[in-house]
């Protein structure tokens, strides 16, 4: 490292070679100690992160195993949540799995097409003067805390969705899914939760897809346009194929957030341990919402049972996020080719 580079005037080279043995050793010794301390500290932080992750998994598994051993019914198929019953603790995640997946699915069905639309709007359609501030606004909205979405959902969205609910009931009630059992009841249903989650994940999916759409090689777009494609044909043939992995991973990130969302769901949903396909009816529950709601009154088995459900949620989000990362990583491999 200290060997003199070519082209350095000779005097300095000689001077440095004369004094270098001693200075170099002291400097190296110093730097070696400093380097090893610094390297150790930074590697240690990395290892600490790994330890935390392992500890999260380990503790949750340990606690869950205690709870599941005490469960007198099947953990996977039971509807009720009664872990603190001393004679017969019984609890299961059937309702929670259903509620979590259904509300997240509704959110995705609504949010993904709209988010792609907004991302295209920002990257390809909007006049530049609108696009930049609007992109900014979307980023800011991604930062709005979930409790505020929850408060707004419960006090503004729920009363305003009554009309939509009765409309769906009236025209689509025959599908069973949109049948309203108690017309006029507050819309604290999985369907409302899905809409609220869609609004919450919209900014995230938009932000990521927008970045991907921006990276589409200009040459591809211009080639399509030069061949006489209309703007939509250009987007369909150049932008969307390039952006597909990005859209998928953005959606997965949004899905991960929708699955794990706690407090917004807890404020809006009127929970019960009923598994019903009538999505507009109040009732049901999600993993995170159930934990937040039941935690306060949970006894020792109750807490462990909640940890077991938390572990399931953890595994689900892990799988979803892992899949998203793998898609992104695969994309990196060929993204170098089109610079």
């Amino acid at each position: 490292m200290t060997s003199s580079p070519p082209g350095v005037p000779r005097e300095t080279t000689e001077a440095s070679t004369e004094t270098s043995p001693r200075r170099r050793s002291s400097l190296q010794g110093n730097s070696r100690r400093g380097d090893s301390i610094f390297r150790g500290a930074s590697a240690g932080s990395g290892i600490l992160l790994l330890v935390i992750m392992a500890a999260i998994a380990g503790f949750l598994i340990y606690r869950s195993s205690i709870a599941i051993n005490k469960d007198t019914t099947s953990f996977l198929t039971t509807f009720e949540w009664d872990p603190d019953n001393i004679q017969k603790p019984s609890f299961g995640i059937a309702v929670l799995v259903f509620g979590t997946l259904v509300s997240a699915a509704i959110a995705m069905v609504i949010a993904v097409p709209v988010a792609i639309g907004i991302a295209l709007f920002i990257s390809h359609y909007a006049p530049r003067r609108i696009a930049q501030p609007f992109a900014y606004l979307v980023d800011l909205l991604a930062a709005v805390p979930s409790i505020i979405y929850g408060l707004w959902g419960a006090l503004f969205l729920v009363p305003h969705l009554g009309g939509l609910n009765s409309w769906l009931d009236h025209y689509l009630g025959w599908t069973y899914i949109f049948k309203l059992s108690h017309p006029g009841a507050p819309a604290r249903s999985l369907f409302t939760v899905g809409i609220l989650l869609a609004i919450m994940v919209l900014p995230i999916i938009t932000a990521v897809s927008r970045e991907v759409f921006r990276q589409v090689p200009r040459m591809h777009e211009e080639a399509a346009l030069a061949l006489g494609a209309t703007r939509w044909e250009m987007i369909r043939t150049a932008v969307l194929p390039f952006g597909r992995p990005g859209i998928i991973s953005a959606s997965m990130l949004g899905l991960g957030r929708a699955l794990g969302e706690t407090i917004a769901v807890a404020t809006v949903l009127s929970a019960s341990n009923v598994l019903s396909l009538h999505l507009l009816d109040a009732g049901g529950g999600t993993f995170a919402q159930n934990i937040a709601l039941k935690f306060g009154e949970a006894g020792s088995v109750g807490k462990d049972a909640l940890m077991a459900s938390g572990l399931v949620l953890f595994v689900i989000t892990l799988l979803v996020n892992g899949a998203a990362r793998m898609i992104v990583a695969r994309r990196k491999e060929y993204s170098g080719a089109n610079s």
Partner: protein
Amino acid sequence: MTTATSTADRSPAPQLRRPLTAARLPRWAPAGIAVLSIALACAIGAGAGLASHLQWGVIAALLFVSISYGVAAKVEGHRQAKDRFFTSLVWTAFVLAVVPLVALLVYTFQQGSSVVDGNFLNHSMRGVLSSGPGGGIYHALLGTLQQVGLATLIAAPIGLLTAVYLVEYGRGRLAAAVTFFVDVMTGIPSIVAGLFILSVWNLALGFDYSGFSGSLALAILMMPVVVRSTEEMLKLVPNELREAAFALGVPKWKTILRVVIPTAIGGITTGVMLAVARITGETAPVLMLVFVSDSINTDPFNGPQMNLPVYIWQQYGYNNQYSYARAWGAALVLIAVVMGLNLIARGIARWRSPKTGH
């Protein structure tokens, strides 16, 4: 090129090829169709007696999409019509997104602005009836400040050092594992982080509710965000700077501390502030670990505290007009804090973005 060939071709075979100067709708056509469809929708809505203006809007949007498709198909041909169709869909998506998001901000501001005043900001809820007027968020503000501050003190150095490790030192398996698990950690639901700290700190080690245990959970949520953003920023620092420092004989640790980090400090600060903004709004783990308190507790290591998001949750739970008003007031303050942090962070990012050298 196409123009040249088409003009050249035009004289021998004028009928075979659609000329480039095919009929196009005038520039004002979309605006005109929009006005027309809104007018029609108002007429239909008023005629059919639809009470909800949302329905009027939906009818107007449907009319706009179908009329512009029809007109364009008639005048410009099928492909252009399809193009216009998707253009209007994209614009619809834009409007569809703006409506709820702006409604959220405006509604919060409307509801909150009448509540927030000096009294609201510097009083706690001690001795205030949950169903009565009065009270404030001072205890919650204080708690948020302490908990978020402690979490940042824990998470920022660890996150920063991890990012330094990944960018400057990390090779091989350990680095790959850290990268992967940082990604995984970003996706941990906040409630799971809360459960983890609960099982370790409170159940296994036997500590009681305190602001600090909330900070631990918040730190877990914050670390991966800090690592990710810092890593991106450190990668932007041009290698020439490092090489120049090495060529002068500066040891690596000093190069990192005195050259690399100062170059990227703007971006790093931005990342940390965005992470702070994120954890400021977290409710679930704090609710679980810090519990709630109506009075001022200045000691984050001892006893339950309050926190702004939890305060909103608590007041919402009281379920009466005064508590709703307090919840909206606190929501407005929380939004202001989070948005403020975001704006400052982005300002710093713009002001001191690392020079990439090209």
